[in-house]
């Protein structure tokens, strides 16, 4: 019994890392950054639904 707050040991994997000489990034972080960039671009180019209706 290691204590009431302790999560089961071994739930954390090693993680996958990508790297190009000198630069490394963990897969989760890379995914989040790519998703944010995609959302940013989509917010600029996608038309807003129902926007025409008003005025």
């Amino acid at each position, binding site marked *: 019994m290691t204590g009431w*707050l302790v*999560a089961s040991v071994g739930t954390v994997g090693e993680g996958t890392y990508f790297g190009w000489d000198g630069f490394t990034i963990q897969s989760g972080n890379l995914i*989040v950054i790519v998703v944010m960039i995609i*959302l940013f671009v989509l917010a600029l180019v996608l038309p807003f639904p129902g*926007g025409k209706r008003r005025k």
Partner: protein
Amino acid sequence: MSAHATPRPGTPADETDAHTWTGRARRWLLKKLPPDKLLPEDQPSYVASWSYVFGMGAIASLLWIVISGIVLGLNGPQWYHVSSLGSFVNSTHLWSVEFFFIFMVVHLWLKFWMAAWRGGRALTWITGVLSFVVSIVAAFTGYLLQTNFDSQWIAFEAKDALNAVGVGAWFNAANVGQLFTWHITLLPLAVGAVVVLHVLLVRVHGVAPPLEAAESDAQLLHNRRESTQPPGYTQPPESTESRDAVR
């Protein structure tokens, strides 16, 4: 006793002669944020764009963070670290945090590239920065509450950092009980307070027009006419209110 007549109870105090702090506060609040600005029924047509949606996305995620967090806190770690339903709710808490930060950062980028601090909106920007910083600390304490090897690692890195800046006597990142209090009460309240301020400031100033909005844009002219400026006074197009606005 003062010579001037006190208004009869129930009569709306004449807004020019409020002489108590409550009256002055009410007058100030109503001037800064009249009900139709606080809860507007429509918005200029340029607001019909995805670039104005992400702030609300962050709020929606924050709501789920708070709701799921309350469920987690009330049931306790024996539940959320052991039972499968507990783990599931714990996961939705984590994923709403991921969405919260994703929406917040996209929101930040969008507001940065439209220079949304124009027209006296500097405080809106600053409260945005504050909410970002406070949210990072809140997320950090949440990370530590996973109480796994990752948490142990960053808790001890953080302990060194806090000791290095000389505040280790008050903040102990390796003390789970202390972290629990920070994570479930103080930091959520702080994030909530900053967000409320941020959104109220957006309402006070009205939504920032896009950069390319023309000086002659009918909606901007309309807003300007409502303001209290003398005829002939021209404001920069981004400002939809009088010049003595809260900065």
